């Protein structure tokens, strides 16, 4: 069984190599090869899952060392895999949703001439993401971590001929790199503190180190998580990342890659548990981001960017839960999985809409699409109900638990976090209802473009609707199934640990509160976008709306604080290097040249001048000799 773990990574990696190096011969078959290999890796995951279920709950982790990777003195890194319940959850999510999105892409990318490469990148992403969750040490995790970053870079910039896509891709990679600095430093700190950076020893003996060290490690891990999961202050890349093809947004920037930060924090639970300050930082980041993303989501007219804001916000919930410690880890992962279903479904629905609307993304130019695209409408609608936490659907179960856990944190902190989470739920209900109303309800608002092409909305082909239907089932059922008999808690508890906090509010009160804010949010959106017609061009809006449209000025902030000073610095340094550093060198050369020019004038060619200098020299020598003798 252990050997199968390596195969899990190897299969999509092989697919990536085959498709990227295969040449034009594979252009036609490429999408199918990629999809089959993704499905194969899901199959392997399922076999391993069945095997894992067959064993006792404390005997489920598998470990396999493939080879010694970097052995230098006390620094030992192995290519070794570890498959426990937490990794297993991710494996099934990644390969499952991944396979569905491969299938979807067959239809979505059917007319793109570079689709072979697209599927190659998708397979590369799967391999890297699986490596990330299967690694048994932080350094190998880092490989997967940057690997998914690379895949994300390649896929965001897949339509490279668009300058905006190329810029967005670059931005995503560089912002992620800032996070990676955090991960690098965390690994180095672990090495100097523990002499190891493998999960098992570090996490088992974490509490032996001082709290200061652990806090430092925790904060660095949080920085890494912020980069990958688009949390404040490294959130700015996610909105731009929507330049990528929609299946990519669904898989990478909604369901899997962006949740890697949650995985990292949950995996490093032992470190955070012993470093309360770091935990405080985590919950703060989570709470701030969940509101930030939600506010941004309210103002965007681009359907994908609205969903991106939503993703940011939902991951904020997960980070918040993970920062709560053992009372939250399980629910962070549970929300991660349910979010994986409904957000992927929503993105695929958005892609389906764009596909039929000539790639129009502005929701103000949709309207009334429910009549034209019934399947998309129903699946999107179910995803919508799930994300706003409609009682009984997936999002309800997982989000409710997080809000409950936030209150259970206790004290003022608990009230603040719980309040923020509740407020977030209200805003979520508002902006998602807005998306729903703008897209599927009301009157049709599309018009022919300059060339006279009028969109003809139509239902997407089967290869696209099938994954949407499957994900819709997940959105409806997953949360309930997980909560049945606390199945998910029991499944993950051996890995992450679990404890019940003491909530000042009863579970029923929290649920009631959630439902109330949900109704308020929906009602507000209905009042604004359902009852009255929607203008085709966005009104100017309040100051907050305008700021939110500009992603709450995050890019302006980065531009003023980082980009511009950086540009001045590099320009200044180029000047300094040329004028000063090189100038000193060339100045030395010039002064030697100048001096020799002066000396050259002594050589005037007149024999008597030379004679004088000879006589003078001789006289000086004689004088010197006599003087020396006299002394």
């Amino acid at each position, binding site marked *: 069984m252990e050997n199968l773990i390596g195969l899990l990574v190897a299969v999509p990696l092989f697919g990536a190599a085959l498709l990227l190096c295969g040449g034009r011969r594979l252009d036609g078959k490429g999408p199918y090869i990629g999809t089959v290999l993704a499905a194969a890796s899901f199959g392997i995951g399922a076999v391993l899952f069945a095997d894992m279920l067959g064993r006792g709950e404390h005997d489920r982790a598998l470990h396999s060392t493939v080879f010694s990777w970097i052995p230098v003195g006390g620094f030992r890194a192995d290519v070794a895999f570890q498959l426990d319940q937490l990794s297993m959850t991710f494996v099934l999510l990644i390969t499952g949703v991944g396979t569905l999105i491969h299938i979807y892409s067959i239809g979505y990318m059917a007319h793109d001439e570079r689709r072979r490469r697209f599927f190659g990148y998708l397979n590369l992403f799967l391999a890297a993401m699986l490596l990330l969750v299967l690694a048994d040490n932080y350094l190998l995790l880092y490989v997967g971590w940057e690997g998914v970053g690379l895949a994300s870079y390649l896929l965001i910039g897949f339509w490279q001929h668009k300058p905006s896509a190329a810029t967005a891709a670059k931005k995503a990679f560089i912002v992620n790199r800032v996070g990676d600095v955090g991960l690098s430093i965390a690994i180095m700190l672990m090495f100097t503190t523990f002499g190891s950076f493998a999960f098992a020893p570090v996490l088992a003996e974490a509490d032996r180190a001082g709290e200061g060290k652990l806090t430092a490690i925790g904060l660095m891990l949080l920085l890494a998580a912020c980069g990958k999961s688009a949390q404040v202050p490294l959130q700015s890349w996610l909105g731009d990342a929507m330049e990528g093809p929609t299946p990519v947004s669904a898989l990478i920037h909604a369901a899997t890659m962006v949740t890697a930060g949650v995985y990292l924090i949950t995996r490093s639970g032992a470190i955070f548990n012993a470093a309360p300050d770091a935990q405080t930082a985590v919950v703060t980041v989570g709470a701030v981001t969940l509101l930030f993303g939600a506010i941004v989501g309210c103002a965007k007219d681009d359907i994908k960017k609205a969903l991106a804001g939503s993703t940011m916000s939902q991951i904020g919930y997960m980070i918040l839960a993970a920062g709560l410690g053992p009372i939250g880890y399980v629910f962070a992962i549970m929300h991660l999985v349910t979010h994986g279903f409904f957000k992927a479904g929503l993105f695929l629905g958005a892609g389906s809409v764009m596909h039929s609307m000539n790639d129009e993304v502005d929701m103000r130019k949709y309207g009334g699409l429910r009549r034209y695209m019934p399947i998309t409408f129903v699946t999107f609608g179910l995803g919508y109900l799930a994300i706003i936490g409609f009682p009984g659907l997936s999002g309800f179960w997982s989000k409710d638990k997080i809000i409950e856990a936030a209150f259970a944190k206790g004290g003022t902190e608990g009230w603040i976090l719980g309040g923020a989470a509740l407020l977030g739920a209200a805003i979520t209900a508002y902006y998602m209802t807005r998306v729903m109303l703008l897209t599927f309800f009301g009157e049709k608002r599309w018009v022919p473009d300059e060339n006279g092409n009028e969109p003809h909305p139509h239902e997407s082909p089967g290869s696209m609707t099938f994954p949407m239907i499957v994900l819709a089932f997940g959105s409806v059922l997953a949360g309930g199934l997980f909560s049945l008999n606390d199945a998910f808690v029991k499944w993950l508890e051996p890995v992450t640990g679990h404890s019940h906090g003491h909530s000042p509010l009863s579970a029923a009160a929290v649920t009631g509160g959630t439902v109330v804010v949900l109704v308020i949010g929906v009602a507000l959106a209905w009042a604004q976008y359902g009852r009255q017609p929607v203008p085709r061009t966005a009104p100017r809006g309040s100051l907050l709306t305008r700021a939110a449209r500009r992603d709450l000025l995050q890019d302006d902030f980065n531009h003023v604080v980082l980009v511009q000073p950086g540009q001045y610095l590099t320009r200044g340094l180029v000047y300094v290097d040329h004028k000063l550093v090189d100038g000193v060198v060339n100045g030395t050369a010039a002064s030697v040249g100048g001096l020799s020019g002066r000396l*050259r004038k002594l*050589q*005037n*060619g*007149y*024999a*008597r001048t030379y*004679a*004088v200098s000879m*006589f003078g020299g001789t006289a000086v020598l004689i004088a010197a000799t006599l003087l020396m003798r006299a002394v």
Partner: protein
Amino acid sequence: MSPVYYLYLAALLFTIGAAGVLIRRNAIILFMCVELMLNACNLAFVAFSRLHGNLDGQIIAFFTMVVAAAEVVVGLAIIVTVFRSRHSASVDDASLMKL
């Protein structure tokens, strides 16, 4: 008579020769001044020989004469050639050696 007076005479002759080399421009005169300096040296050598009572100085004086003779041969030949090509015996006209 003390040999020291010969040394004074040698010094005087040398100074005259040196001054001539530095001041005059005609190559022939220059040449003669050089000869004057060499002969001043010869005189000094012979005087020293007498002063110290050995023959070293006289031997060196002979060497000097041989070298001076050789120098005259080469030097005059050069001067004649230069005069032929430039119609001038002034050393200032031959200043092409400068950089």
